[in-house]
């Protein structure tokens, strides 16, 4: 049921929107279950998949609310099927408790959050980049998570596929986080998924007696028992021991939570992804994501044409944050500029990572930051450097 979509040819190229690319990437990655609830500006993903999934043997269901959609996705994944939901700000808030369940019980799933202006109902049709912290810390308690921040329509396609690969490989929820601008922007995308091999979670095998659902193996990723395969395990949101049954025994609780973090930290080389553009000699380093990074690329080009040494560092995997890569990229920079569509969430992470103050452009008016805005600030910083 999780095979790669064979109907997508090797060299297919298509003019699609970001949300359409997301749906295509998900199906290409083997997603065969989607549960959702209508919300602007993500609804096109649900609409596309409601047509496409039944064609490839999958299931689409529109649930009664955002919470139910997240729950149904986790339920489908517990049954062994690759599953995804898509939402935006208010819906992302509502899904958080169940995202924490998926993190704690280690159920692979993909959550798309198309960022719109907030707080509360905010600006449904206007972009923002203000859910970076919520993606990391949105559910209660301590847990690790993976969040990806693609910067173009083509990258939404490839990162949607990678989101499933990471979710399956590491048995974790993965958040695909992009803003309303690229969600509804149309670009030509190379649909090259047929050349890839999609990851699938490791299924339990061997005798039932010796199988432990949350055993701490050498790679810290437990093999999952598929219902029907004879293991008959218990899955719970309570803290649990290696057996899967609830425990509050301090050593068992500590060991399991440590493993959740180790599971990702140990494999950072497989998880991390960044783009470094002209960082080697940059006097001014711009750090940006999504549509702001798109604008920053143009700004870097304009500055370079003027002979100004400006570079761009762009996290594609945003959580866990690529701190080592950023420190390396910023080692020689005299100034760091963070343009972002919120009041300082990326700035907070960058300053903490680099241990120094940075310059910022914070735009939270529902408009996108323009290349000219970034170029002007970067040029001024470069000339003063």
């Amino acid at each position: 049921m999780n095979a790669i979509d064979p109907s997508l040819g090797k060299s297919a190229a298509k003019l699609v929107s970001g949300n359409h690319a997301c749906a295509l990437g998900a199906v290409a990655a083997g997603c065969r279950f989607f549960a959702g609830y209508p919300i602007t500006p993500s609804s096109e993903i649900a609409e596309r998949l409601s047509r496409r999934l039944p064609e490839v043997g999958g299931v689409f269901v529109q649930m009664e609310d955002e919470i139910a959609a997240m729950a149904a996705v986790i339920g489908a994944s517990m049954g062994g099927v690759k599953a995804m939901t898509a939402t935006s700000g208010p819906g992302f808030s509502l899904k958080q408790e169940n995202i924490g369940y998926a993190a704690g019980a280690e159920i692979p799933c993909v959550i798309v959050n198309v960022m719109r202006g907030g707080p509360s109902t905010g600006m449904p049709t206007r972009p923002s980049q203000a859910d970076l912290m919520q993606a990391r810390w949105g559910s209660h308690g301590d847990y690790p998570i993976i969040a990806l921040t693609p910067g173009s329509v083509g990258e939404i396609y490839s990162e949607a596929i990678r989101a499933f690969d990471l979710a399956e490989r590491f048995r974790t929820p993965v958040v695909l986080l992009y803003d309303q601008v690229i969600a509804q922007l149309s670009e030509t995308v190379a649909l090259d998924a047929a050349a890839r091999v999609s990851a699938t979670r490791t299924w339990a095998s061997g005798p039932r007696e010796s199988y432990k659902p949350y055993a701490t193996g050498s790679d810290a990723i437990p093999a999952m028992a598929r219902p029907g395969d004879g293991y008959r395990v218990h899955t719970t949101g309570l803290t649990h021991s290696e057996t899967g049954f609830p425990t509050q025994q301090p050593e068992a609780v500590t060991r399991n939570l440590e493993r959740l973090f180790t599971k990702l930290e140990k494999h950072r080389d497989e998880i991390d992804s960044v783009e470094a553009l002209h960082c080697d000699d940059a006097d001014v380093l711009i750090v940006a994501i999504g549509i702001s990074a798109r604008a920053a690329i143009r700004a870097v080009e304009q500055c370079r044409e003027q002979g100004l040494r400006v570079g761009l560092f762009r996290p594609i995997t945003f959580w866990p944050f690529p701190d080592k890569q950023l420190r390396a990229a910023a080692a020689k920079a005299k100034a760091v500029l963070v343009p972002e569509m919120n009041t300082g969430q990326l700035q907070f992470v960058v300053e903490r990572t680099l241990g120094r103050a940075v310059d910022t452009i914070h735009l939270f008016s529902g408009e996108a930051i323009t290349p000219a805005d970034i170029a002007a600030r970067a040029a001024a910083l470069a000339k003063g450097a």
Partner: protein
Amino acid sequence: MFIDTAAEFDVRDYLRKEMMPHFLCPGCGHGIALRALLWALHDLKIEKDKLAIVSGIGCAGRLSAYIDANTFHVTHGRPLAYATGLALARPDLHVIVITGDGDCLAIGGNHLIHACRRNLKLTCLMLNNEVYGMTGGQVSPTTSESMLTTTTPLGNREPHFDACALATAAGAGFVGREVTHHVPKLKELIKAGLEHPGFAFVEVLSDCTEIFGRKNDLGSSPEMVMRQKSDIRPAAYADTVDTPFRPNAMPTGVLVRNDRPEYGAAYRKAAAALAGGAR
């Protein structure tokens, strides 16, 4: 006439022995309901490997851990939503939800009405003990009027929810209610629910002796169960009972049974037609 040994039913075949002793209070009706469920599964010869139990939070939610099956103890109020995803993704599994009155009617009320309306093949077993027992005895949507709980020190002033009437109004294909006093009857009702091709809602009137009973001086467990027995009116006798004398009697037995199309099969049929046709 209803003797376990005649059916060769041994409850131990369906329990996880490593989880015993269970944590239910002395006198709690939930254990009786669990036994009836396991007995029904035995009668229907449902394979444990193909059985998925999804439960929410609360005393009822804890029962899934005791059953030797594929068990999922999920978030508060959401077991029906999790089960919907699981049953749609895996139509080969037999999916049963175990939930309580708070889990199913308060925090999870929205999921119940839409599960009834959608009519996906699921069995929802709601154990109604009139109280939030796990958290210490707060008022629930099914607490009877004037009863004392830790959050209604003046007596409950909200009318109690009739879960079966709600499920019926929302369109459930199968609705039934039974008390723990009649275990074989309860088993037969659960069996009928499990055999129903669509969504089945089964309410079990359970008793919380330790917390709710103690708070309201309702006596020991047998006394509470006997009181429940006197409060019911089997559906089969609905026409013969002189209802004006017992206006509050709760109807029991199979209350609704219809054969409207099951959601999962209808979806798969439409999808097969689409996949076979032009895109």
